[in-house]
């Protein structure tokens, strides 16, 4: 196909804005639809397959990493098809233009967008298929289609007695043509949306039958481990191959772009052989920074360059001149790893000129680019099979592990599985960026009159574009890949959407203050970064809502009332704030030895307020209770909303209490769960999730639980101890 310049420049910006250069791909249909007489299957569209035997298969174009898309999106199509979701089989989508996330122009699961972007198209797909089945039945019965009804996979005759199974109608339905728009069910007729229902993947996940990337098994498969430079950017020059190759079970060992691969008959043999490996690294371009230097660099950059204006209202300098009180604070947030329970892994097999890859990935079309990168293959020669993901949190948006296994498989020409150890997962990942925030607030007459926020740190897109840009133009020759990335970055904000990963949640500061300045000082210390559950919102949430608390304290006002009075034009913000405060008993004394903190933060279109009740016991922070009110528009599955918000809260608390990846001369100090700790069951607080009943369009819930809990806990500790927490992780 050809692309003209206009197509190339056509852009769409994500609602969450997290990404990326999006173009429309005209006429690229790759999924065959219609009735297939040989199999007796009818594909009314790219989502559904209905068989004569009443098997219904739904193709899930978003991956399932725990966020509930498997159940949630199936519910949408089931509702309009009028079939119990539990009767529908779900399969993961192959890479195809039809399955791209319309917000990003990439086949990508992230940014808490799955439900919001599927809300209309999937219901329409289900309704259209149902309508065609009804029309076919009406033709058989010679009655009006509008007089027929449906009931769980059957079309019911106007007489209320006769009925035809969908399976009996699939061949006929294929011939029906819908003219005009298909009507969607009114809310009053919903049977599945908004109702408490089971998770469709629960059975597979409690019986050990769900297939994650780690569980892929192929005949005669071998196992690879990769030894990467201890410092990012180091390149392997040579290694003691003759020694390693003679070890038990070892089949091969060789240098790749990403490090030294050792391949053996079993994982354990590969791991053991790795211990004997001695690699000569060229560290000319390797990272040699330390965490302290990163923050020194940030401070220098912040002082040298006030940064790009991202939002300006009124004059903060005038507000500062006229202020009765000027408040200043600086906040620091460290690098964070994702620590998915399933370490990075992928399986690949190069045969018959094609490369097949099985992988737990959040972006299979980017995976295709990564897989093709170090071979003679083009992306079209790569087939990606997506599995269940043992956690994602943004880590699996970056495709380095697919790049690795593909390079190994291309060389070996036998099925190979590459598994990262937990230590490798902690030390060689792409991280949530460390950030610095400088805040200034002006107070006069008990009012906040000036708000200044300077964000200092890198942008994620600089690191992501390497695979993302070519994924949008998979037909582009590979020598153009780097150029595509550079063009994408140069055109940022003009031909491609702006990268707001550093500023999201800061520019959307919701409080009514007459003078506002939000600036970003862009500085990148060269540490590899990516998205991390709630991304920019995670660090901006801490900065904004901690500083709001500081200002409330300085103005002598209750932190909840201080926020509330500046939210007259933000009713949804105010409602969740009021509800969380009421539910948590805000204003009443906390139990002995405890205090409460509050925070309010909107991310990914979802409004969240939280009250944390915490104390300090035996020198350690003890979080007793988190009360959370959330407004995410129309709820599809209440239990999944509750789980995602509560899960986000625990994810945020883990970061608040323990999360820290540190560099020592370019090497990461942390390695496994003993020094990169996760919150354990006995430390988990009681969590109350209160969901606002809403008819608004649904918004995401995977990430919005994370940002407010970190400042709410810090604010609670300040209320308890009088010591302000300006650096993460928090200290008792």
């Amino acid at each position: 196909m050809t692309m003209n310049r206009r197509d190339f420049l056509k852009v769409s910006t994500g609602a969450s804005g997290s990404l990326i250069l999006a173009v429309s791909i005209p006429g690229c249909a790759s999924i065959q639809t219609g009735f297939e007489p040989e199999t007796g299957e009818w594909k009314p569209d790219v989502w559904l397959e209905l068989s004569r035997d009443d098997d219904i298969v739904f193709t899930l174009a978003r991956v399932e990493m725990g966020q509930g898309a498997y159940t949630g999106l199936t519910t949408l199509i089931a509702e309009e098809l009028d079939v119990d979701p539990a009767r529908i089989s779900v399969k993961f989508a192959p890479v195809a233009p039809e399955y791209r996330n319309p917000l990003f122009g990439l086949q990508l699961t992230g940014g808490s967008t799955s439900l919001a972007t599927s809300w209309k198209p999937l219901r329409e797909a289900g309704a259209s298929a149902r309508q065609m089945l009804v029309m076919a039945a009406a033709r058989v019965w010679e009655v009006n289609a509008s007089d027929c009804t449906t009931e769980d996979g059957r079309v019911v005759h106007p007489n209320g007695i006769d009925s035809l199974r969908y399976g009996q109608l699939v061949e006929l339905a294929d011939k029906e043509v819908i003219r005009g728009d298909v009507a969607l069910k009114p809310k009053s007729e919903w049977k599945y949306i908004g109702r408490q229902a089971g998770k469709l993947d629960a059975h597979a996940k409690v019986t050990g039958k769900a297939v994650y990337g780690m569980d892929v098994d192929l005949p005669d498969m071998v196992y690879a481990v990769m030894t990467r430079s201890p410092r990012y950017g180091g390149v392997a020059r040579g290694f003691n191959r003759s020694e390693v190759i003679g070890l038990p079970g070892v089949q091969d060992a060789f240098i790749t772009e990403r490090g030294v691969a050792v391949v053996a008959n079993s994982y354990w043999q590969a791991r053991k052989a790795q211990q004997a490996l001695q690699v000569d690294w060229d560290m000319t371009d390797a990272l040699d920074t330390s965490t302290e230097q990163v923050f020194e660099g940030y401070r220098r950059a912040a002082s040298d360059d006030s940064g790009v204006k991202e939002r300006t209202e009124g004059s903060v300098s005038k507000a500062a001149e006229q202020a009765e009180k000027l408040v200043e604070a600086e906040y620091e947030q460290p690098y964070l790893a994702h620590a998915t329970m399933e370490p990075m892994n992928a399986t690949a097999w190069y045969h018959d000129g094609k490369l097949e890859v099985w992988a737990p990935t959040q972006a299979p079309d980017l995976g295709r680019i990564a897989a093709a990168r170090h071979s003679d293959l083009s992306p079209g020669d790569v087939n990606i099979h997506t599995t269940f993901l043992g956690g994602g949190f943004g880590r699996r948006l970056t495709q380095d592990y697919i790049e690795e296994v593909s390079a190994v498989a291309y060389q070996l020409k036998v099925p190979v599985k590459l598994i990262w150890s937990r230590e490798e997962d902690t030390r060689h990942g792409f991280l949530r960026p460390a950030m610095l925030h400088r805040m200034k607030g002006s107070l006069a007459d008990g009012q906040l009159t000036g708000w200044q926020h300077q964000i200092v740190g890198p942008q994620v897109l600089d690191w992501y574009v390497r695979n993302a840009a070519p994924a949008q133009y998979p037909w582009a020759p590979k020598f153009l890949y780097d150029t595509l990335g550079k063009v994408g970055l140069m055109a940022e904000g003009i031909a491609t959407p702006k990268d707001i990963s550093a500023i999201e949640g800061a520019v959307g500061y919701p409080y009514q203050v007459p003078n506002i300045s939000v600036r970003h000082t862009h500085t990148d210390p060269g540490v590899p970064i990516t998205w991390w559950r709630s991304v920019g919102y995670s660090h901006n949430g801490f900065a904004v809502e901690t500083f709001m608390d500081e200002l409330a304290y300085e103005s002598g006002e209750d932190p909840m009332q201080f926020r509330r009075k500046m939210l007259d034009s933000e009713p949804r913000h105010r409602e969740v704030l009021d509800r969380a405060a009421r539910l948590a008993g805000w204003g009443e004394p906390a139990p002995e030895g405890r205090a409460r903190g509050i925070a309010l933060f909107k991310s990914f279109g979802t409004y969240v307020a939280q009250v944390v009740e915490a104390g300090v016991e035996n020198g350690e922070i003890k979080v007793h209770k988190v009360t959370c009110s959330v407004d995410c528009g129309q709820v599809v599955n209440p239990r999944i909303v509750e789980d995602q918000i509560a899960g986000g809260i625990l994810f945020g608390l883990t970061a608040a209490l323990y999360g820290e990846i540190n560099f020592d001369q370019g090497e990461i100090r942390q390695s496994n769960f003993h020094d990169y700790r996760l919150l354990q069951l006995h430390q988990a607080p009681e969590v109350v999730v209160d969901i606002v009943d809403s008819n608004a369009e649904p918004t995401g819930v995977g990430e919005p639980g994370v940002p407010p809990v970190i400042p709410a806990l810090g604010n609670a500790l300040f209320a308890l101890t009088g010591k302000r927490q300006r650096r993460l992780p928090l200290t008792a």
Partner: protein
Amino acid sequence: MAFSLTVNGHRHTVDVDPDTPLLWVVRDEIGLKGTKFGCGAGLCGACTVHVNGQPARSCSTPIELVDGADITTIEGLETEGRLHPLQQAWIDEGVPQCGYCQSGQIMTAAHLLANNASPSRDEIVTAMTGNLCRCGTYARIVAAVEAVAGGVGQYEPAPEDA
């Protein structure tokens, strides 16, 4: 070297290096993938199986130490095609999110209930807190165990030191 094991009632002989962790034997030699690799250091519990009725971190258990042992994995909890009550409770409570840690969680809970049919909340928390979950399903795990606690279990663990 050859080692023999009884896994979920079936006898297997495997030929692997003596220091190979039980985890990789169960997963890659015997082909039962329900037991998961999480940390390789006994820190997260995703690899929990029962060895002679006792919970063990299979990622850190060399095969030579369990030669001849009776092993139960998540695949062995069902009896005659019926789910273990804990598995059913896990479904009813909607515990799993990503689900990767849940095999280990359920195996730990199954051992708890096999030895203490009516554990208190504190006993549940103490028994389960060594199993990490990154998605934050802890509250539902406690609820699911409590839903089964006091009920009649179908699962009879292999006798100790069998």
